[in-house]
């Protein structure tokens, strides 16, 4: 037998029905139901299948803590996986499906895993799924263990982001939290209270506590109204705090966004002080088959009756530890549910004599039934014999798990309290306090005084009112029963969501895992969506008994964000997706490039990779462009090049510190190539330095490093050498048209820049300022292609104009635009490096052919001392070499290893590799151990099982004599 709707009772709107489907079948619920309560009311017992063994699972807990009712909500683009049915309000048209159940929850092929339980033990993944066999298992495991489905279409939901600030942030609008908010507001603080449930009031809405004299249900309703109408309290329901960061910075997801017509709102909140009042949930009793549908926590059972007007079953057995189940017993009586027996694990000493059918000193050894509990086997804690009882429901009240995940995220420390058998907050790292059931209180009176204290203390800590005195609190006295020893440990579940059993924990201890954090990872304990909310303390208790340590010595698990699942869409709130994910930087001449068929790639800037003529592949186009540059002339957009001006009396001195080479001897109008090193002596960036005037320099940084170089210059100037100079980033202020090729000079001359462009008066590595059609232009004669090359800098406003203008001037000379890919071929033909592509974090200047420091440089520079280390002089360092393949048509893979010996050892790797259209053969650059001395040697190059033979050669493949460059 399963659950049903009671004739009366509950807080649901019985006049307002809602229609929804679950696993394709239509159901009817009431407004105010959760998906879980509505399904139980409709007689549904099996909500889904477990992760590893695919065992049938039903409702166990409530709110964010329930481990068993994960749902796939919605269809198509709007679908979201892994949401507990206990957290989903039913709405008209809601579509819900079980996860982990194929082909259906009733008949699941994966249940075969249940039979193979013995092999799917703790550490199974670590022991079995190792390379090279992993490839064999992966597809099967992924399909069987997959949790939910991700939508294939783009998310059509809308999200927004909000920032909130307050003096006091209260997490949880139960009795304690509401009193905390009211007290803090009363002291004058600006208060926000966040509640993950759809309504405020917490468990006091439906629980009457241990003592009927303290029925606070009416009181809490009044309190909710007062808090709602308080001018300096903002109450946000359906708002879950998911993470707690430094300096009281909290992130929450607001799902009650009707007002602003978005689906979810991501909230970033900064609070002066925080009050955690998240309450507690019942943890499971751990016995054989304690995971079967029909076994339910006492608090979830009471909430179903009093909040939703739903009975979970008809004949129940209650399994309790002393008086913990009294609220559930009262609720069962109200609902007219038959209590077959109350199995009480305590010996009854010291407690009131109870006039009910109670089996003192007994425990449930096992539950019977597969898809629904059919009965239980009860045994005395000491002694022989067993009783079998028929029932459809087992209500368990093992003990409370205080919800302290967010408190521990904040850095708060817990300590084990023997009397209440629970972990309580002892010290906090931030301005935060914990109150109510999270703080272990067990009566409304205690929750109220604790809440008021926390609110006043929080307010006082940020300057509102006086510090209150600490109240006396009562806490439950517990003698915990961590697990039932008479049960088979193999099906006694500690973590139902991760399918972790007592025997898994025992195995990990036998295999000498000691730290709870290691046991967690080995067994996957608490690693699911449930995140240890109910399994955490249960597991610590089990480990404590198995290892003979006190729970305090076992220690607690560090909780990590998020507290409960967050949709990826919410994290992209603020429209940070699609085209708006990151700002797109377009070149000033973007339209010109488009017009000429540019195919763009995002390199921080959208840059032309190549210019496509009809039907060309990238390789075809790049080869055509690279040949045209060497034959005639090409035009390249070099705008993204980093450009920094250094000006001041000490500018040259500063640059001498920054670069490994000498910059103080650079003459006005001349340019010098330089290497920037880090303090390890390794290459950080390369580029040219232009001397504009005696105290004014322009330096170029690699396009991809421009931002890092700018920070680097500032750091060394401000922190180490506060010399008399200023640094200005002018990267985006200049557009650069790069003209390269044997006919580049003719093109520049045709542009009539207003200075002599002849080789004699404008040689390689020099600079001239002029005007092109009246537009001021800075022209640098430098080259990254090995050809005569001019970088024409004009104001970015003229970026498109200059490309057009140069193209017009170049028409007579066969000028073609060329992209990044052609540039890469050209520079590789010349053996010119890209720092970080052809170098790694160990590469020093000498390794690429620059034997710094030069004899004449006296000044220190960044990394200089490191170049003097013995290791920097080792002949076996990885050095830049060229690799010529035996077969000129074979292009090596970048990343392929140069190997030697048997078994093969890697002695280097390919860093750049192209088919050279100008040389008609494959060319490659590589870093190789002792590469310089190995020139001429034959080597094997290995990649993905394929070996190619080649010869080590000079990295300069083209125009070794540099005749073209200086022409």
């Amino acid at each position, binding site marked *: 037998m399963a659950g049903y709707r009671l004739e009366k009772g509950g807080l649901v709107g019985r006049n307002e029905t809602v229609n929804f489907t679950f696993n394709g079948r239509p159901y009817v619920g009431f407004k105010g139901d959760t998906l879980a309560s509505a399904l139980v009311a409709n007689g549904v017992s099996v909500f889904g299948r477990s992760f590893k063994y695919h065992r049938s699972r039903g409702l166990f807990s409530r709110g964010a803590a329930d481990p068993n009712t994960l749902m796939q909500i919605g269809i198509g683009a709007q679908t979201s996986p892994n949401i507990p049915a206990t957290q989903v309000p039913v709405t008209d048209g809601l579509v819900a499906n079980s996860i982990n159940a194929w082909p259906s929850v009733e008949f699941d092929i994966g249940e075969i895993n249940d039979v193979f339980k013995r092999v799917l033990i703790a550490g199974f993944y670590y022991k079995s799924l190792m390379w090279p066999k992993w490839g064999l298992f992966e597809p099967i495991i992924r399909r069987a263990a997959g949790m939910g489905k991700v939508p294939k279409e783009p998310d059509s939901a809308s999200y927004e982001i909000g920032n909130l600030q307050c003096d006091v942030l209260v997490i949880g609008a139960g009795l304690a939290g509401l009193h905390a908010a009211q007290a803090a507001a009363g002291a004058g603080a600006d208060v926000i209270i966040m509640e993950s449930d759809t309504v405020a009031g917490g468990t006091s809405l439906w629980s009457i506590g241990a003592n009927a004299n303290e029925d606070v249900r009416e009181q809490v309703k009044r309190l909710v109204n007062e808090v709602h109408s308080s001018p300096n309290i903002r109450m946000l329901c359906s708002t879950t705090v998911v993470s707690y*960061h*430094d*300096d009281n*910075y909290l992130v929450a997801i607001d799902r009650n966004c009707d007002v602003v017509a978005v689906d979810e709102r991501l909230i970033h909140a*900064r609070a002066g002080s925080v009050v955690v009042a998240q309450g507690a949930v019942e943890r499971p009793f751990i016995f054989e088959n304690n995971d079967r549908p029909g076994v339910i926590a006492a608090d979830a059972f009471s909430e179903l009756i009093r909040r939703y007007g739903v009975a979970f079953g008809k004949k129940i057995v209650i399994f309790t530890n002393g008086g913990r189940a009294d609220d559930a017993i009262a609720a069962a009586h109200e609902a007219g549910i038959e209590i077959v027996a109350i199995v009480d694990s305590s010996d009854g000493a010291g407690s009131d004599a109870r006039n009910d059918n109670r089996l003192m000193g007994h425990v449930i050894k096992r539950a019977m039934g597969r898809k629904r509990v059919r009965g239980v086997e009860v045994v005395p804690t000491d002694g022989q014999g067993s009783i079998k009882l028929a029932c459809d429901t087992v209500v368990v009240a093992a003990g409370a798990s205080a919800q302290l995940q967010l408190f521990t995220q904040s850095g708060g420390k817990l300590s084990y309290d023997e009397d209440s058998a629970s972990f309580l907050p002892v010290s906090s790292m931030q301005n935060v306090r914990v109150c109510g059931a999270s703080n272990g209180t067990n009566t409304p009176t205690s929750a109220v005084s604790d809440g008021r204290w926390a609110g006043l203390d929080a307010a006082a800590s940020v300057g509102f009112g006086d510090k209150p005195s600490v109240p006396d609190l009562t806490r439950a006295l517990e003698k915990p029963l961590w697990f039932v020893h008479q049960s088979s440990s193999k099906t006694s579940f500690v973590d139902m969501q991760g399918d972790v059993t007592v025997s898994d924990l025992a195995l990990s201890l036998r295999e000498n895992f000691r730290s709870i954090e290691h046991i967690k990872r080995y067994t996957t304990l608490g690693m699911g969506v449930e995140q240890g909310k109910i399994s955490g303390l249960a597991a610590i208790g089990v480990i404590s008994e198995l290892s003979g340590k006190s729970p305090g010595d076992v220690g607690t698990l560090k909780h990590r964000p998020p507290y409960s699942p967050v949709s990826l869409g919410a994290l992209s709130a603020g429209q940070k997706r699609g085209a708006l994910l990151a700002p797109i930087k377009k070149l000033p001449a973007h339209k010109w490039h488009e017009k000429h068929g540019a195919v763009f790639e995002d390199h921080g800037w959208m840059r032309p990779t190549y210019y496509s003529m009809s039907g060309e592949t990238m390789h075809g186009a790049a080869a055509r462009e690279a040949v045209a540059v060497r034959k005639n002339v090409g035009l390249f957009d070099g705008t993204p090049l980093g450009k920094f001006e250094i000006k001041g009396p000490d500018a040259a001195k500063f640059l001498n510190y920054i670069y490994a080479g000498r910059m103080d001897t650079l003459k006005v109008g001349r340019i010098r190539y330089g290497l920037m090193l880090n303090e390890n002596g390794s290459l950080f960036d390369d580029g040219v330095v232009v001397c504009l005037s005696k105290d004014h320099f322009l330096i170029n940084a690699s396009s991809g490093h421009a931002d890092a170089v700018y*920070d680097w210059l*500032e750091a060394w100037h401000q*922190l*180490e050498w506060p010399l008399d100079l200023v640094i200005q980033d002018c990267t985006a202020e200049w557009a650069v048209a790069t003209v390269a090729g044997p006919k580049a000079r003719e093109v520049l001359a045709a542009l009539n820049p207003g200075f002599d462009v002849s080789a004699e008066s404008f040689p390689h590595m020099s600079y001239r300022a002029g005007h092109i059609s009246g537009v001021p232009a800075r022209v640098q004669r430098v080259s990254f292609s090995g050809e005569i090359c001019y970088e024409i800098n004009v104001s970015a406003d003229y970026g498109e104009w200059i490309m057009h203008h140069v193209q017009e001037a170049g028409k007579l000379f066969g000028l073609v635009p060329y992209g990044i890919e052609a540039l890469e071929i050209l520079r590789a033909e010349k053996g010119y490096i890209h720092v970080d592509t052809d170098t790694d974090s160990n590469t020093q200047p000498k390794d690429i052919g620059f034997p710094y420091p030069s004899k004449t440089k006296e000044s220190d520079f960044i990394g200089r001392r490191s170049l003097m280390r013995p290791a920097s002089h080792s002949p076996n360092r990885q050095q830049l070499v060229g690799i010529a393949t035996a077969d000129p048509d074979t292009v090596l893979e970048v990343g392929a290893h140069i190997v030697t010996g048997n078994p093969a050892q890697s002695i280097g790797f390919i860093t750049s590799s192209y088919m050279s259209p100008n040389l008609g053969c494959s060319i490659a650059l590589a870093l190789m151990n002792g590469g310089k001395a190995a020139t001429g040697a034959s080597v094997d190059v290995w990649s993905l099982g394929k070996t190619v033979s080649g010869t080590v050669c000079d990295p300069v493949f083209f125009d070794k004599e540099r005749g073209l460059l200086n022409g």
Partner: protein
Amino acid sequence: MLKIDCPWCGSRNEDEFSNGGESHLVRPEPPTSVTEDEWANYLFYPTNTKGPSKETWFHKYGCRQWFNVTRNTATHEILNVYRIGENPPEENS
């Protein structure tokens, strides 16, 4: 998300800043007379303090100024903030 008081801009969120490691580090020079040990100490042996640690921070997405922060590395509490070239506040007197 730390709240950092830039000495030039005031209180700002951590994501505007970047951390530059320990401050008041003395760079040994001239290189020709720096021993291997001195250089290794400077490069590879930060004090890595658990507790109050003096660090440099850079207001990258703000004023682009570097400054000093005393931060408890165990709790992330920021104890004080002062400009480059200044002594830590408690040593000022």
